[in-house]
């Protein structure tokens, strides 16, 4: 099912993940979130931007355990915990945040 952002259609898979990594842009992230009924605030963007950098460097989306640890290191202990990340991304931090970041679904993630 294609995702419509300001008149441009983007190809997505059956779970709503972007088909092409290179299609991603901030307004596409907003539209992906909106299709789940979510709105992106600064806290979401910190995680989304982190994930995009991680993918650029390592070519994978990190598992949730790795994400939690790395966020703690980067953004502080108050953000590097499951409670905070699940509040931001109630469908599962790795899965949902990766979707908005335009990344593939993490390998073996929850």
């Amino acid at each position: 099912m294609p995702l419509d952002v300001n008149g441009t259609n983007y190809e997505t898979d059956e779970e709503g993940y972007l088909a092409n990594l290179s299609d991603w842009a901030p307004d596409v992230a907003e539209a992906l979130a909106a299709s789940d009924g979510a709105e992106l605030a600064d806290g979401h963007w910190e995680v989304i931007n982190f994930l995009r950098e991680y993918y650029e460097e390592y070519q994978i989306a990190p598992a949730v355990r790795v994400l939690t640890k790395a966020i703690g290191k980067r953004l502080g202990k108050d953000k590097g915990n499951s409670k905070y990340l699940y509040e931001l991304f109630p469908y599962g931090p790795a899965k949902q945040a990766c979707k908005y970041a335009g990344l593939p679904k993490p390998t073996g993630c929850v």
Partner: protein
Amino acid sequence: MSNTKTFVYINRKAPYGTVYALESLEVVLIGAAFEQNVKLVFMDDGVFQLTNAQDPEGIGMKNFSKTYAALGDYDINQIYIDQQSLDDRGLTIDDLQALVYEDEDDDWNEKSSIHLVNREQLSDIIDSADVLLNF
């Protein structure tokens, strides 16, 4: 009683051309969630999986060699390279990418995950395995 087992993954094949190298890496990353004692061995053409500056774009493959650098984040830090296999291919340890991990049990410094081993040490590593996976 501890439920931790020692998993030894042996990587023997060149990175591209077959799917063994990528499959092995994915199994290792998924398996890391179970917090077992994991050792990776690179031998035979498998040593090419860790060579520096890979660029498989011309054959339409993703450069997954960058992903090995994430192994430290997954607490996988026992990586063994067979010296004989390097020698046979005219490679040295400097031809391989550096892989490090952060030592959370000690001083939090970055330490190398890579250990060069001879065949005798290699047989001890294989002998230590509760589960042995050969790719």
